[in-house]
């Protein structure tokens, strides 16, 4: 490979691709060719760089300058200015890097978004070419596998993982080393290692990013795990919605074979291991470990009662370890650098780092990896950049449909398994949805319940029927038909479903309801007792009204209204017919005079002045 003067890393993660990465890349290549620089400047596609809301992103090395929101035109300009003349193009500089106008005055680490992050699981994502095994090796890839196979017994590998304190990143936080040890102790000629890449939590996409951006880390980790527990066969269960992840993983498995990191007698030892990909249809419950195994066996993806646990009786009745993608991605660095190294990050009981997917009312939406124990405030404000319009953040919802909300007054809580659990939320797989005053807590609970109702596999009654009843009550409340008894019934039901459901889906489904009730009971009561939706979100409780003082009669609102609910003559004050209004909110957006406002409680019937 020839020496290159510059490398343009362009993010080809899902976010950036949908923002038009492909055409940006083509523009880069076209321009480079035009200047005859295509042989000395390389354009490399990487996995998600983490700041998806600012995509398409690219980094120009050796200067390490980050560019955001690229267009084909921007790409051309960057070639002409930056590559050709060494001048940074300020208008596309990454947020927070704006002041850096000349090259090499500021390292990327000083940008707050990057400064507080510690990338272990995402160490290679956005940095290497995921299709190049050499680049993975250059970043110490497969060294851990070599070390494990040639210098450590399986027991020593397990001890290292146990000492590191690594806990499962797929939701429950079960100690990984212990899980491996239990599997190792099982007497069986056949054992299996499964990587859970089902990633069902709405909003979370760290697993996809790792598979797309660093597939070899999963191949390496699974092989190490296979050695540790005594398995010769591994499966990666990926949802069909992740075609790019599947493609890159497939390629990684193939090249690992060519290099002898998979297959017979790895590194010349007598250990042999192979990996197969299994594609799932993407039902949420298939991420649950017993359902997932049924699905691999070709049966319906329904959970079964535990015990026996998978480590005792797993895939085809054989001892099986199942680990999440992010959990596995942490394994090679732990083996390579040691448990103590890993423990320098995070807290005593939650060592290491965790990847979060920030979504909702936050400036920097995307993936971030931080040491455990960081406070929510640091995570949301220093890294997340706070509210996009500088409003107050009201709460954050963590853990997806199995999780709960954490109000702003608890933002100094450290992020770890115990602290979040104490607040009635969970770490889960790391989805974080940031809420502000415009988000109604009853509506938030309803959103997650709707998800659960859709995804319940239907095998057990409390989950199948109970969640539906809970949903209906929430729906009633948001429609203005709820009673105080309903709130009580909701609480009782939640408890019953929690205690009597078969699998984790049903057992955790009431969490969003319970946690919103715990912190925002007053919002429920406001709906029921006062006929008010404090966030002005639930349509039954709001009206759009025109302030006659401010209306100049430009007719913009009347023209946009889908139901012709707005009447008025040109240059005269307009008026909304409340019976015809469907509360779509279009009018408030087009009025440039701030004459329309949303009010709660609702104005009933037509208002005539």
């Amino acid at each position, binding site marked *: 490979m020839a020496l290159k003067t510059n490398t343009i890393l362009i993010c080809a993660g899902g976010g950036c691709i949908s923002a038009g990465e492909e055409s940006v890349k083509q523009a880069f290549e076209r321009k480079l060719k035009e200047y005859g620089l295509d042989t000395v400047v390389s354009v490399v596609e990487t996995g998600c760089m983490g700041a998806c809301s600012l995509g398409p992103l690219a980094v120009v090395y050796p200067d390490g300058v980050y560019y955001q929101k690229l267009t084909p035109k921007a790409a051309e300009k960057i070639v002409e200015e930056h590559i*050709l003349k*060494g001048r940074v193009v300020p208008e596309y500089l990454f947020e927070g890097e704006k002041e850096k106008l000349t090259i090499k005055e500021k390292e990327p680490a000083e940008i707050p978004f990057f400064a507080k992050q510690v990338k272990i699981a995402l160490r290679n994502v956005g940095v290497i070419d995921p299709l190049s095994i050499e680049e993975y090796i250059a970043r110490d890839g497969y*060294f851990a596998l070599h070390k494990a196979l040639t210098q450590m017994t399986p027991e020593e590998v397990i001890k290292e993982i146990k000492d590191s304190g690594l806990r499962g990143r797929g939701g429950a936080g079960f100690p990984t080393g212990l899980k491996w040890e239990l599997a190792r102790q099982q007497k069986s000629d056949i054992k299996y290692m499964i990587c859970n890449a089902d990633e069902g939590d709405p909003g979370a996409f760290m697993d996809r990013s790792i598979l797309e951006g660093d597939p070899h880390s999963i191949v390496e980790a699974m092989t190490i795990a296979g050695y540790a527990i005594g398995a010769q066969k591994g499966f990666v269960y990926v949802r069909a919605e992740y075609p790019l992840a599947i493609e890159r993983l497939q390629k990684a498995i193939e090249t690992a074979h060519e*290099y*002898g990191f998979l297959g017979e007698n790895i*590194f010349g030892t007598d250990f042999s291991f192979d990996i197969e990909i299994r594609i799932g249809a993407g039902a949420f419950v298939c991420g649950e470990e017993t359902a997932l195994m049924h699905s691999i066996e070709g049966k319906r993806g329904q959970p079964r009662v535990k015990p026996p646990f998978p480590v005792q009786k797993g895939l085809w009745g054989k001892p099986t370890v199942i680990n999440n993608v992010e959990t596995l991605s942490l394994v090679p660095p732990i083996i390579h650098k040691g448990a103590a190294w890993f423990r320098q990050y995070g807290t005593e009981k939650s060592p290491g780092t965790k990847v979060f997917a920030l979504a909702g009312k936050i400036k920097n939406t995307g993936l971030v990896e931080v040491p455990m124990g960081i406070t929510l405030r640091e995570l949301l404000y220093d890294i997340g950049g706070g509210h996009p319009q500088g409003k107050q953040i009201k709460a954050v919802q963590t853990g997806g449909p199995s999780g709960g909300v954490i109000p702003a007054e608890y933002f100094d809580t450290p992020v770890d398994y115990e602290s979040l659990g104490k607040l009635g939320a969970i770490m889960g797989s790391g989805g974080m949805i940031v809420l502000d005053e415009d988000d109604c807590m009853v509506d938030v609970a309803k959103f997650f319940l709707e998800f659960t109702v859709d995804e319940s596999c239907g095998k057990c009654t409390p989950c199948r029927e109970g969640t539906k009843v809970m949903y209906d009550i929430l729906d009633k409340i948001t429609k203005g038909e709820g009673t105080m008894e309903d709130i009580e019934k909701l609480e009782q039901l939640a408890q019953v479903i929690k205690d009597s459901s078969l699998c984790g889906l049903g057992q955790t489904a009431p969490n969003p309801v319970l946690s919103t009730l715990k912190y925002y009971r007053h919002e429920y009561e406001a709906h029921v007792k006062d006929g008010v939706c404090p966030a002005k979100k639930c349509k039954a409780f709001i009206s759009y009204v025109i302030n006659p003082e401010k209306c100049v009669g430009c007719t913009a609102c009347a023209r946009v209204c889908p139901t012709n609910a707005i009447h008025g003559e040109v240059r005269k004050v307009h008026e909304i017919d409340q019976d015809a209004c469907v509360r779509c909110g279009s009018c408030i957006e087009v009025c440039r005079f701030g004459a329309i406002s949303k009010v709660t409680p609702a104005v009933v019937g037509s208002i005539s002045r």
Partner: protein
Amino acid sequence: MSKVKSLEELMKIKEQALQNIKMREAGKRGKIVVAMGTCGIAAGAKDTLKAIVEYMNEMKIDDIAVVQSGCMGLCEVEPTIEVALEGQEPVVYGNVTPENAKRIIQSHILEGKVVSDLVVKRGEV
């Protein structure tokens, strides 16, 4: 690709790949700036750039960044390059044909001796 059996083989792949990756990363011992304004390109700066890259590659020099800049304002002695090594005054060379580029790399970068007959200017341009 034959199968990797030993740590040595793994190390070798790593070093090879690192060389390629290193060029992307900041933190070099110095840099060579090739003036690539319109006049520079007209005077053959592209060939010079290529020669520099190829020769550095050949000599396995990977701690020097090669970057391009706009016109340095020295059109009559194009192609021009600037060699800036850490802790030293930058040196601007003129008439850098591909052959001269090799001389500069050999003498200035590898042996630490400035090629005086090609020097146009010392210090910041």
